[in-house]
Every structure is written in C-alpha cells, then in structure tokens.
C-alpha cells in the first residue's frame, strides 16, 4: 500500500503500511522479538513514541522521513483502545497464552517456576485462590502491576495486552495442573496432618495463652485458614500491625498503628486515620509489637511442636 504524501491518511492505514508487518495486524506483537503495542500510550508519552519511530530501536528501523501528519494520525491511532481479546478457543487465545508464556519465563519463572507451580521464593500460582477467582485478569493484573512489596515481589510495568497474555498463560497452567494427577508440586492440606492434637494443645497452653485464646481470638481459626496458609499464619501472622506511642518534646503522647519505621523516621496512623510522622532524633517512641512473641519462638520450635500445634489449631473450627 502506498502512503499518499498530500491527502490526509488515517492512523489505521499508517499503522497497516509501516508497523503491522512486525507489530501484528491487531497490534498484538510477536513476542519475544516484536512487542505488542496495545496500550502503548499507557507506557510511554507521545514524545517517547515519536522518538522511537523516528530513530528506531534495536531491530526496529528508523522512520525518520515519516510525514508529520501521518505521524500525528498514527499516534492518535495507537492511543485508541484495543478490541477485547478473542473469547476462549481458537488460534487467538492459544497465541495469547503462548505470548504470555514467553513473558512469564523471562520475568516470572525465576520465582514462580516455569509452569507457574512455584519456584525460588515464589508461590505455586496453580493453587492460588486469587488465581481461581480471577476473571479475565481482574485480580491478577493488580498483583502484577503493584507487586507484593512486603513479600518481595516487584511491580511490573506491562502493557494491558501483555498482562492479558500472562493471565491467559497462568489460567492455562492452572487448568493443566488440576488435570495432571501426581505431577503437582506444592503443599496439600493432607500433607500437614502428621501432628498430635493433644500434644499441640499442651504446647499451646504453655506458650501461646499469654496472648491468645482458643475460645477467644482464635475461636474458629480453622474455618478462616487451612493448610499451608494456616501454618504460615500460626508461625508468623505477617499482616498483623504493630502499635506505637510517640512522646513529643512537649511531653504529649500520640498513639496509633505503625505506618512507617526506619532508623530516621517514625510514622503512625491515629484512631481517626490521620497519618503523622516525626524525625526519630526529635522524639521518643515505644513499640507495642505482640507479633514479636512469634519471633521469639522461632529459635525454640521443634518440627514436632509445629506439626502438633497445627493438629490442635485445626480443631478450632
């Protein structure tokens, strides 16, 4: 197709003439070599996109002589939203999942394993409740975009289409894992049933009742958590927040939940939800962190203690 140099040309035609051969007819790309361009306007400014079009990048040639009108139309076209990905079935979705698999292997596999079944430090996504409840990426995309900083998962700045492809891959791997007997890694509830509940109750009464009660805060805990999640919460309930009381030079005291603490700054949220922070050099502070009771037990547990405690806690339904 020839580009007209005088008549105005639509952005879609400009794309079809110059870009589609590498970036795909529907801007879906061809990973790993040719990135998808859907949602590119969320990743880059018009200036940045123009820079790449004009000067090229890596294997992409430069389009230094592209007329400004055509470039403007092309930029508008690239900013239009995509048509939603094809429904399940057919070439499009397996292509999507394949593209997602390539991205997954480069960026996720180190932690989550090549087949999403868990790897170095990263959980088995095929057993994840969040993945099971996810529809079309509505939950997974948030985790990918924001990361899980408290669990050391970084945030990833993928385009919408890249995220769709990774989501498709994860769902496909989950489906495969469910249908593959005996080939799964990860921890089943049935794996964690080697303890003795009576011994667990004795351990609990000897070590945990200064803070916890089987009929109080832990009543029904086994209905809220099960399996590995219950064991992890039992050993270290990482989401529990600590409290802090800060004494100002005036003598006034302010209390709240810890919002931030390093060696230079202490910050809290007070009962009204206000955020307040102070330089540590100017104030005194006292932490109230009952979670440290869990940390103190780390050096004391035997594996039998842990299995017995699990057996006992699972009776608290």
């Amino acid at each position: 197709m020839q580009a007209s140099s005088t008549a105005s040309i639509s952005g879609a035609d400009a794309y079809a003439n110059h870009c589609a051969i590498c970036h795909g007819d529907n801007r879906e790309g061809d990973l790993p070599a040719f990135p998808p361009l859907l949602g590119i306007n969320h990743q880059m400014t018009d200036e940045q996109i123009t820079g790449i079009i004009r000067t090229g990048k890596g294997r992409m040639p430069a389009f230094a002589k592209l007329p400004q009108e055509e470039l403007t139309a092309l930029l508008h076209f690239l900013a239009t939203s995509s048509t939603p990905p094809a429904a399940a079935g057919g070439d499009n979705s397996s292509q999507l999942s394949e593209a997602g698999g390539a991205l997954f292997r480069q960026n996720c596999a180190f932690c989550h394993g090549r087949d999403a079944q868990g790897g170095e430090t990263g959980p088995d996504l095929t057993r994840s409740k969040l993945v099971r409840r996810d529809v079309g990426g509505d939950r997974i995309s948030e985790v990918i975009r924001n990361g899980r900083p408290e669990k050391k998962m970084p945030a990833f700045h993928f385009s919408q289409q890249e995220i769709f492809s990774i989501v498709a891959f994860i769902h496909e791997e989950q489906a495969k894992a469910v249908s593959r007997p005996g080939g799964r890694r990860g921890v089943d509830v049935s794996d964690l049933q080697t303890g003795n509940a009576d011994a667990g109750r004795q351990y609990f009464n000897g070590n945990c009742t200064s803070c916890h009660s089987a009929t109080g805060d832990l009543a029904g805990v086994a209905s809220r958590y099960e399996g590995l999640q219950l064991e992890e919460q039992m050993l270290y309930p990482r989401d529990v927040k600590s409290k802090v009381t800060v004494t100002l030079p005036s003598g006034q005291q302010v209390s709240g939940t810890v919002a931030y603490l390093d060696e230079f700054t202490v910050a809290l949220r007070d009962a009204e939800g206000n955020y307040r922070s102070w330089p540590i050099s100017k104030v005194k502070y006292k932490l109230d962190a009952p979670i440290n009771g869990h940390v103190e037990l780390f050096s004391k547990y035997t594996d039998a203690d842990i299995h017995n405690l699990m057996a006992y806690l699972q009776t608290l339904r």
Partner: protein
Amino acid sequence: MKFVTHRIALAGLASALAMLPPVLVSQSLDPAELLHPTVDSWPSYHGDYSGRRHTHLTQITPQNVGNLSLAWAFQTDQTAQIKSSPLLVDGVLYFTVPENIWAVDARSGHQIWHYSSPPTTGDHIGQRGVGMYKDWLFFTLPDGNLISLNAKDGTVRWKVEVADVKKGYWTTVAPLIVGDHVIVGVSGDLDNLTGYLRSVDPETGKTQWQWDATPPAGTPHGTTGGMTWIPGTYDPSLNLLYWGTGNPTPVLNGNPRPGDDLYTCSIVALNPDTGKLVWAFQVSPHDTHDWDAVEVPVLVDGFFHGQPRKMLMQASRNGYFFVLDRTDGKSLLTAPFGPVNWTLGVDKQGRPIPNPDKEPARDGRFIAPDEGGMTNFRSPSFDPKTGLFIVDAHPSYSIYFTKAADGNYGWAGADYGLWGKGVIEAIDYKTGKIRWSHEVGSGGSGAGVLTTDSGLTFTGDAYGNVLALDSENGKTLWHAGTGAPMQSSPISYELDGHQYVITSSGGVMFAWRLPGSSYAAKGSAAH
C-alpha cells in the same frame, strides 16, 4: 588520543600505591592494570582481584562524611533494578541491567552511549556487569550469549553462545578477565543441568577451557547443578582462580543424589590457564535448601593464630562464615553468623554436617536461614585496618517441603519464607565473633558493603537509605534516602581530585562526594 599527565592531590594516600605513568586518555584497559588497580579506576566487578571491596581513598572521613552530597544522578528510564557493580575506567562508568549497558561520563553524569540488545529469551532475573579487556567490553545476555562490544561506542564486535538457553541455562554473570582469559559462569537450576565455568579468548570468543562442577545429567547417583553466577577472585602470586559454585539439582529432593554432591556448594581453586581443579572445599555437603556457595571468596593476607596466612573468606548463604588457607583449601575457621538450625555441627574438615531431619519433608521442616540465605550475591567487604569482615546478613526462618509426587526434576518441592530481617555484621575473622551489628530493616536489605581506609562502611538498608557507618562500631554517620532499596554493591574512586562513592537503587545510579572544589591537603601525594 591525547597523552595527558595527571597531577592529582589526595589526602593521606596509602604508601602502597604505584606511581601512575603518563596516562593515555581512552576507553581502553590494559589487563596488567587489573593486577594493580589505581585509585582513579574500578576496572572490574570487585574493583580488584582480592574481592575485599576496600578502597585506600581517605578524602571522605568519619569527620566530614556528614557533608557528603549528591554530585549527580543518572536515570536509566526503565524499570529493571540495577544489580550490577559498575566499572570506572578513564572517567567513564559502565553498568548494566539485563540486555542493556550504559556508558556514562563520570564527570557530568550524562550518557555517552547506551547499548540495548534486541529482546532475548532466558531468565531476566539480573545482570552483574561487564568485564573489560583493552578496547573491549564483555557482556552476558539472558539467553546464554556472550557479546563483545567496543568500549568507545557500544557497537558489537562478536557474539558467541556460552550456554544453551534451550536446555534451561541463562547467564547474568559479569565476566572476569585474568591475563588473556575471559572467564564466564552460568546459571540454571530450574532444570537438572551441569554447572560449569568457561574461559574464552578475548579476541575471538573461542573456548579456551571449561571446568564442569558436576558430572553429566543422568550419571548414576550423580548430581547436576553447581552454577557459577558470581565473579570469582584471583591470586596472581599463586596463579589460582577462586570461584564459588551453586546448589545441586534436583534442588529440594536429595534422594536421587546421595552423598556430598561434589562440587556443588563449594569453593574451588582452579588454574586459570588450564581450568584444572587444584583444590576444593565444600561449604554445604549434600545441600537440600538451595544454598549456593557463590558468594564472594574474599582474599586476605594476615595473621591467624599468630601465623601469617594467605586466607580466603566467605560468608555463605547457608549461614556459616568460612576462613580457609587459600594455598591448599584447608579450613581455619567455620562459625555461624546468624541463627542456623539445620546442622549437627561442624566436621573435622570444617564443613557443616547437615542434619537429615532438617531435609525438606512432606509435612514441612522449619529451617533457619530461609532460601534466600544468611547472605546472597551482595558483596561483603574486608577492612584491613580493623580486621573486620563486614557483611549484610539476613537472619531468617522458612518452611521447606518435598514429597515423592514432586518428582526428581528442577525444584522438586516448595519452600516458603516466613520472616527475616537485615543486619550489617562486622565479623572478627580470627574468632568468628561478631564485634558490632547494625540493624537495617524488616525483610532484609539487598545492599552490598564497601569499606574505606579512613574508617567508613558504605551500605544500604531495606528502606532505600544509603548509609555511611563508622567501621569501628557501626554507628550511622550519614544517610540519604534514595527511594528504592539498593540491590548492588557500592564502589569508590578518585576523579579530578574528588573521592566519589557510587551507589545504585531502583533504576538510578547516584554519585556522592564532598561538595566544593578539589581538595589540596597538606602533605598530599602526587602522581
């Protein structure tokens, strides 16, 4: 090219420095300079062959470090975190993230050139940096290719495959240059693969030798693994190359590979000209917790129990600190540097004895440290003045699982970290005792450590603060918040009469120095 004679005034220069000849200003590194790097360079990953990451510069002191300020910051405008140790050669900094190299003018903080490879397959978990030999840089890509580029402009001279990504290998290592050898290590423990170290010709990339850490996959009762992904160290007088090897595969299931699993989780001494093994010390016999022993093998000459010794020290992932005699690999000291609960003690050869009851199991085993280990790729530093080995440690706890259904391949199980924190620890190498420690945050810090002759320790905490500590007692003397935690190790060099400390965090490179014009202190040395 110009011939320029530098006259540089520096305060309190150590007398051990060589006089600089008239300097050829160019993007070129004579390999002989790697034997005696001058303070105006940082010509390799560790700075020098010892791995001590200790600078003789003393312009920045405990008294004036409170005034340290930002000279410039370089933004890479991309999201991968910088994990590389930059090189500084003739006023140009070279550093990397996967598939990318930047050459930055260390005076202005502005880009000279930027190389970006076309997208590659392979794991993009990190990139440790480039090696330099004469006019050429050497750079590994995630897909197992080694490329050689012109240091002047980043154009590619050649590309050779050093590892087969289709089998499951990937590469992140910064190549180490020893004489006319470009030495490259490999990665890959998601598959059962032989780990190896390869030396290639700097002009052509052709293989000179390869040392395999483990036998071929499928060897009866043999193991695979032993990856080599952190640059080693080198003793020119002994002509020995020291390198750490990674964990065995399958990772969490030790049953298919009974015995010690040599030479995984080991410190090995190789002849750099032939690749032949001279001695080996195994840090974790029959490891089942993914505790690579690739951490920096730091070379220190000093006294041990009254005797002068050529030593090698490693603070290892498994939670133990090792001091070896580097002439023969014999153990001098083995001591934990944080909570460990997986051993039955230390044997007569100085190796930890793994407790079979602490191998991963179906119903889980509670293990200290976690899989990330008591330390990891971040560099420690040895300070000769205080005799302290300073390391960013990670006391931590985790649960490890494996069962028959997990199979014999790759990870073969699952592990879950529960809790950890970061602590900078100053270990007295003669006793293994920790003389001071400085907490650096919940979750742990990824920052490496640099020490200076003037008594400063540079590192970072879990919250993005760069810290200058007093090497005697660990007290904070200066800090700056950089907005992202450090995942690399600091370097230092002298340029235009200023001492610079370079740190990176997130995608930004920071250059720190004392403000004001060049110092010309009394009694300074000129060269």
